């Protein structure tokens, strides 16, 4: 501790350079934490899924619908306890630029199948009994200043026109992966508005036991194999994972960019540290003359690198943690539950430590090994 004033005084020698270096480290670790959290959030999303829920989509692709008539046939499959269905709507709000996830569901069966979607009982009743109503996540309420009973109009993109819903219920998800900024409305209204097409985007099938999942999925797919709309059925986790897989290369890209950023900042920091140490060759020689040992000088330079790296890390990682939490960031609904995890903070601290060692070790060794007589000749 008694050397701290000396370390701080040395860092204060070129305040602007020190501040810029700390800012570089902070920015690098902010980006690192952000990109890593994208990856972990996607991974968490891929892990979501009730053990007893299967999802059946069109085997050709998720953008192709399935006939609504499949519902009753699915209910008849042995081991199936309940069936619900949903359809991606993709509407936009306001000036058409405000986007959040919204889809139509068979409300009663859907809510029964998703206990993770929690709302007051009276609101639930109000939503279920009003076909033109909407159930919204609590974030939308605060984000847009909506209130219960308010009419909200979405502009359809896939299904054109203005679609107006009355907010009747607000839910809070018990699992952050569900997301708290989703608008859900009645499939009956959807079906009616598009002309009784009788289509479902996907089916959710609740089964009697998780161990039966593979058998039931096969039975469903076999049942529709020769139809005009064959199905592809799997567990809800597989369904979520298929979305995450679409992001798969993005995750790799994010990780790579994160590492590249950290490496670039490592070079910047190392350069700043070496410049700083080189400028003080004479002073290092003077300190050696006073009696500072090679080890003490090595430690002092490493401490300087440590103060820069760890201060930058504290700012970068701390601001990532606080900023995303304060703004409830969720990547326009694509990254529900986005929150910098403790493991990411630990990893970031590890990166900062590595940064400290990598940027400090060369100037520290140079300071320790400085031949004092030659350096003094240079000074004098």
């Amino acid at each position: 501790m008694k050397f701290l004033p000396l370390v701080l005084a040395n860092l204060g020698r070129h305040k602007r350079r020190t501040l810029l270096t700390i800012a570089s480290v902070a920015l690098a670790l902010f980006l690192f934490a952000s990109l890593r959290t994208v990856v972990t959030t996607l991974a968490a999303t891929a892990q979501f899924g009730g053990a007893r829920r299967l999802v059946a989509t069109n085997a050709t692709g998720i953008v192709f619908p399935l006939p609504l008539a499949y519902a009753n046939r699915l209910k008849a499959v042995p081991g199936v306890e309940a069936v619900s269905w949903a359809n991606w709507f993709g509407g936009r709000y306001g000036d058409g630029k405000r986007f959040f996830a919204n889809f139509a569901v068979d409300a009663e069966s859907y809510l029964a199948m998703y206990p993770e979607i929690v709302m007051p009982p009276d609101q639930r009743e109000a939503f279920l009994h009003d076909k033109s109503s909407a159930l919204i996540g609590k974030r939308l309420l605060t984000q847009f200043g909506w209130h219960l009973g308010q009419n909200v109009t979405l502009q359809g993109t896939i299904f054109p026109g203005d679609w107006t819903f009355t907010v009747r219920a607000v839910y809070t998800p018990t699992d952050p992966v569900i997301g708290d900024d989703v608008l859900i409305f009645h499939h009956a209204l959807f079906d009616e508005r598009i002309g009784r097409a009788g289509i479902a985007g996907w089916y959710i099938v609740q089964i009697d036991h998780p161990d039966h999942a593979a058998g039931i999925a096969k039975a469903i797919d076999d049942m529709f194999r020769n139809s005009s709309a064959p199905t592809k059925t799997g567990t809800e986790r597989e369904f979520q994972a298929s979305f995450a897989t679409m992001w798969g290369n993005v995750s790799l890209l994010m990780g790579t960019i994160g590492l590249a950023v950290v490496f670039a900042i490592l070079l910047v920091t190392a350069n700043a540290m070496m410049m700083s140490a080189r400028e003080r060759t004479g002073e290092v020689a003077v300190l050696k003359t006073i009696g500072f040992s090679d080890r003490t000088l090595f430690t002092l330079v490493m401490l300087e690198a440590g103060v820069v790296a760890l201060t930058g890390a504290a700012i970068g990682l701390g601001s990532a943690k606080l900023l995303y939490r304060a703004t409830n960031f969720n990547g326009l609904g694509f990254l529900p539950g986005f929150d910098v995890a403790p493991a990411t903070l630990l990893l970031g601290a590890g990166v900062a430590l590595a940064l400290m060692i990598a940027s400090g070790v060369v100037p520290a060794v140079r300071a320790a090994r400085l031949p004092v007589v030659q350096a003094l000749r240079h000074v004098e």
Partner: protein
Amino acid sequence: MALVEIRDVHKSFQRDAQRIEVFTGLTLDIEAGSFTALMGPSGSGKSTLLNLLAGLDKPTSGVVRVGGAEVSAMRPAQLAAWRARHVGFVFQSFNLLPVLTAYQNVELPLLLTNLSKKERDERVRIALGVVGLDDRLDHYPRQLSGGQEQRVAIARAIVADPTLILLDEPTGQLDAKSSQEVLTLLQRLNAEFNKTIVVVTHDAHAAQRAKSVLHLEKGDLIEKAAVS
């Protein structure tokens, strides 16, 4: 009794293909409590001798002993610890750390000891008081005159109460008045505090303030004169 014993010291440097012999069998004693001026032309080996005494450099052969400790045989880590305890070094160009105040500069050698903060504080104030700068504790080197900077450097050299104070051209960058102040201070340190002082100088007036003068010529001790 000799505080410093130099026995048959050889020192040579390799510069490119050329081997430069600085000392070829130098033998010398410096008494405890003495004030010795080391004179001689450039390249005579004055600064090299000072570096050998401070343990900053090692002889090619021979023995350098200070206060009974064989400096020439110590390993680097031992030398650093020994230097911190036994040597105070003053440079021609002061070499204070510009980012530290006078107080912090003087405190530097004490950071290497086990003294408490309070004890360090007492010693720093005493050292700066001895050099007459106890009213400049919080001044940075840039806020001090050359003479004041050198006095801070002397305070830094004496604060750990070293056995030996070595000065390399301490008045080389000072005006006449400041030079006199610094030399008077050195005399006082020698007379009142019985400090053993070795000062390298080109300045005959400065050398006159010492108790004895050594003349070096091409690495040989050609004269040892007592100053009257």
